[in-house]
């Protein structure tokens, strides 16, 4: 088995890259939120904080994520990353709630 997992479909790589794309989307969204600071005021900082924190959380877990999925391919069973799915979705839902509050309050 060459390399860390030997999967010809490169599933661990593709999954880690998908997380990386999501991280970049969160960074972009947080930058856009900052751009709206003059229009919407300080509450926007909360939206920035949520999206930036989610992006940072993905960044610091990427190595561990790749290792876990490569090991999962080797062992033919991967531990479904329930907590990462829940906090990512939770961050997006929080951004929606905060965004609606900001829009209705302005």
């Amino acid at each position, binding site marked *: 088995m060459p390399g860390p997992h030997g999967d010809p479909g490169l599933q661990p790589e593709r999954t880690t890259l*998908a997380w990386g794309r999501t991280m970049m989307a969160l960074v*972009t969204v947080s930058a856009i939120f900052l751009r*709206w600071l003059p229009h919407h005021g300080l509450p926007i900082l909360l939206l920035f904080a949520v999206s930036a924190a989610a992006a940072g959380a993905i960044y610091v877990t990427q190595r561990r994520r790749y290792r876990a999925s490569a090991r999962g391919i080797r062992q033919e*069973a*991967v*531990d479904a990353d329930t907590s990462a799915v829940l906090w*990512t*979705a939770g961050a997006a839902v929080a951004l929606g*709630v905060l965004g*609606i509050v900001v829009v209705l309050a302005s």
Partner: protein
Amino acid sequence: MSTNQPPSADPAPPHRGKIAERLLPGGTEPDPRFTLANERTFLAWIRTSLALLAGGIAIEAFTADLFLEPVRKILAVLLLLLGMLLSGGAAVRWIRVERSMRNKTPLPLPLIVPLLAGAGALAAAVVLIFILWR
């Protein structure tokens, strides 16, 4: 897919987290490739919802001289609400797909697909009505 062991044998799954044990009980460990594919699909939905969230705030902030105040707010809230429902729905769908893969049952129909399509059409209709009445 690759279960060569007899069904009675414990496949010795990797250490499962507490939340995984609670939300994804029973069944057998699915092909790890399917689990990773499910995760990537979830992330694609999250990126879609992030685009909608950014769009919602953008409409509110930057189209003041284009749309009337109520139209602007309706569109912004619609987009934000859709982004919120899609990200929540993506997590629910991820759990449902993971469960059906563990129990080897047919995959559930994605409710978030008609939600996105319907809300997209609704947003287009709001803009269309606004343009026609202007």
